[in-house]
């Protein structure tokens, strides 16, 4: 079963503390955790995101939508990166999430199951198209 571990920093203070950590130290800490996931044979994919300040938000609350530079809403709503892991139960995902490095008060890891395409109606035209696309790009 695939689960996404979504890494969130939910307070300005926690975000500020993160900036004070030595970069090499951070690379090593995260690298060790990544290696643990790889060595355990459970890691499928992982990405981290560039700072939210570099981002742009399209807000559909008005017509036409409003485009603004910078982070989406409050810090507590930010999404900073993810791990995709393949483990037998959500409990295993929880135990891995607890081991996420670089954490302290204000850090949260959200765990979401990632359904497979087999769970959707296979005779649906759009699911068939999606399957063809996944096939051509090597992801299922």
């Amino acid at each position, binding site marked *: 079963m695939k689960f996404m571990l979504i890494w969130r920093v939910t307070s300005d203070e926690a975000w500020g503390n993160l900036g004070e950590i030595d970069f090499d130290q951070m690379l090593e800490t995260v690298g*060790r955790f990544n290696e643990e996931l*790889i*060595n*355990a*044979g*459970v890691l499928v994919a992982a990405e981290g995101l560039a700072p939210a300040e570099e981002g742009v938000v399209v807000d559909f609350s008005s017509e036409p939508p409003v485009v603004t530079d910078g982070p989406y809403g409050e810090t507590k709503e930010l999404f900073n990166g993810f791990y995709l892991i*393949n*483990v*037998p*139960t*959500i*409990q*295993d995902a*929880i*135990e*891995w999430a607890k081991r996420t490095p670089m954490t302290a008060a204000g850090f949260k890891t959200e765990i979401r199951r990632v359904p497979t395409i*087999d769970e959707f109606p296979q005779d649906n035209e759009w699911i068939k198209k999606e*399957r*063809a696309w*996944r*096939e051509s*790009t*090597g*992801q*299922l």
Partner: protein
Amino acid sequence: MSDPTGRKAVAAVWRIDSARIIGALTRYTGDFALAEDLAQEALAEALVTWPREGVPNNPAGWLLTVGRRRAIDAFRRRSARDEKYAAMAHHLPEGGALTGAEPGPAPDDVLWDPDQIDDDTLALMFTSCHPVLSREAGVALTLRVIGGLTSDEIARAFLVPTATVQARITRAKKTLGAAGVPFEVPPVSERPARLAQVLSVVYLIFTEGSSASSGDEVIRFDLAGEAQRLARILSRLMPEEPEVHSLLALLELTAARFPARRGPDGETVLLQEQDRRRWDRSAIARGRAALAKATDAGRGYGYYGLQAAIAECHALASSVQETNWVRIVALYDGLGRLAPSPVVDLNRAVAVSMAQGPAAALPLVDSLAGSDAFKDSHQLPGVRGELLRRLGRVDEARTALEQAVRLCGNERERAVLARKLAEL
């Protein structure tokens, strides 16, 4: 996440950490069987304590500390009658909080040396799959020690009573002790034979999982997935061994076909009739990457490499007709030389029939007729009937297929044969 009894959390921690805990305790006590007992005791204690007090911050450290405390108790008990243990009990550092609520983590402990964990895991693999053990014992011990499965889970996976699994594990530990098997990665001179044993145990776990057709599959642990995980672990620990990558490739490429191997009513769909769009492309990509590593070693393919290369031929083909059957025949030639077997010969004959036509394959199939491997098996008459059908020898084809239907014990496969017969 509702887990009112905390049991699921304990089980999950155990799946993640059993190998390093048992590895560390084995190094600590110098006794694998004792370490496994101690680890199980620590696990039992967690099942009582965690639901009451919550999962500790460092669950693996907690389990290790409890295990070590139990080790000291055991040595003290034994020291009364055995000088060796008396000396050990004297020298062992107590470390950690031996009384009170939560045993503290042991971050600086030599037991938790990260550089040692890989060697320990590998040593556990080689110990659990030691040639003095039967295959069944090796499978049970590997799943329990490296996979972190409970005896219950193993029993459910193999459809045997829990007591049987427990007895197998107890006996296996006694056998290892009696044989004086050292806890180590075997020296280079013994490595090829010992590694072959490890790989065969992992492959057996996979085939057991992938052929799971009986029993209630819903409650069966995903053995095939666990075998893939074990192969991934091995490929990280022994990157210099091409056959390790080959085994991983074979498992990935075989598992890639799982989504297509059952029809809407749960019936078996044979390779030639599978909807190839349903094959798992990411598994194929992973399998090919693993096989490329084996190829890059430049030593030619071994037992698993040849099978993985055959699986790759299928994975790359968009249909049966477009499959590179000439290459598959050559790979079966290699496999037949390396590990002669009538089953390989039969598969090779099928490949020959696809590469050169049924006339070339029929004598090969007929030459296998006397083989004990196919005594009372539907496989030989099934293949023979198919070849005769393609040659237009309908009466002979009917006789062969009728025989195959009669001998076939698997209901779903029999249905496929019966359909062929009806279509003659």
